[in-house]
């Protein structure tokens, strides 16, 4: 996706995640491929049920039974999906950090924030107890928690929503990760706090030369933070490419519909170009393109088989048979 195969830090190939019984599998993720380069921020966008969070979680094998994951997640030459549990533990929370939407449920409520940071330092660094304490204060300071030293022994419930998210980022950063997975990290936050957290993530990305995968449903967040974007619909990739190109000229009817659904300035009280209907149920996916029943550009071939993801412009791929018509719209 980002040019030569050798540059990618993480390569996901033919990722499939199935839930339900083996006789009637529900494919939450169906044949997803993408790469993340060093220092790159990749956004994964889509509506509820599109498979974006499941994709993110399956990278670190955080999908539990009855979910079944197949395909390849190549991390610096090793397939994380085939790695023994022991070795995976060094990657998970170590080389790859994770932050979630709800810090209150992701943090341990009965351990102080300082202890939770030190726990990760103990697991993934060689620092001694004094060194870990010092580093924990540094990390809290670094993510913008005021008076870090005095808040070390505070518990998650003593922090505000924004500060909890900062604490979770501090825990993830303790191991000096090369990749940060962020699952809707700002969705539960107010807009002024969201703005601070996104800018913090971007600052840390450049300071630590870390890559980021950011899952969100908010296209504004994508526009402001990501280098590249992957749009998912009903478990499949609809379109991938550089954010600027994708926003300027979307090449998938669904991406175009999403962008047009967002109100723009200067169209006061005009009807919005909404997408008719609603996303399909995984148990009742159409035979062809999953978006075909809602699509204004639909061709008869769209209803036959799911369109493949093909390159439509340099570094820009779309799974839309009508991508040329969409580009002109």
């Amino acid at each position, binding site marked *: 996706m980002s040019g030569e195969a050798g540059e990618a830090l993480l390569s996901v190939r033919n990722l499939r995640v199935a839930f339900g019984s083996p006789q009637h599998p529900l494919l939450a993720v169906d044949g997803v491929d993408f790469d993340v380069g060093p220092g790159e921020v990749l956004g994964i966008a889509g*509506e*509820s049920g599109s498979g974006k969070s499941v994709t993110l979680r399956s990278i670190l094998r955080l999908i539990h039974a009855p979910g079944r994951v197949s395909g390849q997640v190549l991390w610096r030459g090793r397939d994380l999906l085939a790695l023994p549990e022991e070795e995976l533990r060094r990657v998970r929370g170590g080389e790859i950090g994770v932050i979630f939407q709800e810090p209150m449920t992701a943090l341990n409520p009965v351990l102080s924030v300082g202890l939770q940071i030190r726990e990760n330092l103990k697991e993934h660094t060689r620092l001694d107890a004094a060194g870990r304490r010092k580093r924990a204060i540094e990390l809290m300071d670094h993510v913008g928690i005021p008076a870090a030293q005095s808040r070390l022994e505070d518990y998650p419930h003593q922090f*505000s929503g*924004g*500060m909890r998210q900062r604490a979770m980022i501090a825990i993830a950063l303790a191991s000096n990760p090369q990749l940060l997975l962020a699952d809707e990290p700002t969705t539960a936050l*107010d*807009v*002024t*706090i*969201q*703005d*601070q957290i*996104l*800018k913090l993530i*971007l600052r840390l990305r450049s300071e630590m030369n870390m890559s980021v995968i950011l899952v969100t*449903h*908010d*296209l*504004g*967040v*994508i*526009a*402001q*933070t990501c280098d590249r974007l992957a749009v998912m619909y009903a478990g499949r990739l609809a379109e991938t490419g550089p*954010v*600027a190109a994708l*926003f300027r000229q979307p090449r998938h009817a669904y991406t175009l*519909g*999403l*962008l*047009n*659904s*967002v*109100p*723009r*300035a200067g*169209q*006061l*009280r*005009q*009807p*919005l*170009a*909404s*997408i*008719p209907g*609603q*996303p399909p149920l995984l148990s009742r996916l159409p035979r062809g393109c999953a978006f075909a029943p809602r699509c204004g550009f639909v061709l008869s071939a769209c209803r036959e088989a799911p369109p493949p993801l093909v390159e439509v412009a340099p570094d820009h791929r779309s799974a839309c048979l009508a991508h040329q018509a969409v580009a002109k719209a």
Partner: protein
Amino acid sequence: MDDAAPLIAVTDLAMRFYRPRSVVDRLTGRPGRIVHALNGVSFTVTRGETLGVVGESGCGKSTLARCLVRLHRPEAGHIAYGGIDVLRLAGTERRAYHRRVQMVFQDPYSSLNPRMTVRQTLAEAIAFHDLRAGAEIGKRVEELLELVRLPSDAAGRYPHEFSGGQRQRIGIARALAVEPECLIADELVSALDVSVQAQIVNLLLELQGRLGLTVLFIAHDLRLVRHISHRVAVMYLGAIVELAETEMLFTRPAHPYTAALLKAAPEMDPGRRSVIDAVRGELPSPLAIPAGCPFHPRCPYVMARCRVERPPLTDREPGHIAACHLEPGRKL
């Protein structure tokens, strides 16, 4: 009623919630803590208008909505609806007010009775207010479903059988069943996916045009509020800090908090990115509202006066008021 007179006039509305005293509070003799949800809110809404209300969590916007439909009883202040004192209504007059002013909630799944079919829910509202004779109720239910574009076979189904967007349509149909004049929409589309949000916004705009509804649209999404409101009020810690016609507010904000909100809202253009935080600091708790201007601890333009003296809402230009000590006309 005179057309120019406001339909809703809210004056100096105040509402506090008393937190129960903890054991430690009792032992140490500390008084119970008080959440100052609304601290003197005044505004008017004219007939047929959409007033948007924006603000972050804890700013009091939902408390305001609940006071308007009398789910909370405010401690002080007045609410007049078409000249009638709403807070003194009782009996049949109160019932008539509830028919004229309806609320639509954010989560239709928790506000619809899961054991009632759509038909039962709608018919109950119609029958309660004696709006149709028994035999005509069925026909009215069909009309309502058509109005919010739900298939007619929806009537026999239960709320859990619908998607989020469809459930929100049921919530709107339920509110419209009693033929209200005014809708209070509290985070009407926040729980919905973007593509479905747009459908519900279009429906609301269309219904407003057809039925001449007055709408109070409460939301945290600035893009959405800008799109559908005639005027917008910005709330911060229980008070209105700025109120103006929509385009004035979005192009010439007069309060630093409004300016910060606008800057913080992620823009849809990847070519225009900022690297500095739109506003520093955390939202203060409504348990301990800062003295003076409540925004002063986060304000980049703070002056000595702001820390002690609370600025009143003053005129900035016709149709534009703001509560800030900065000289009017300053570009933020």
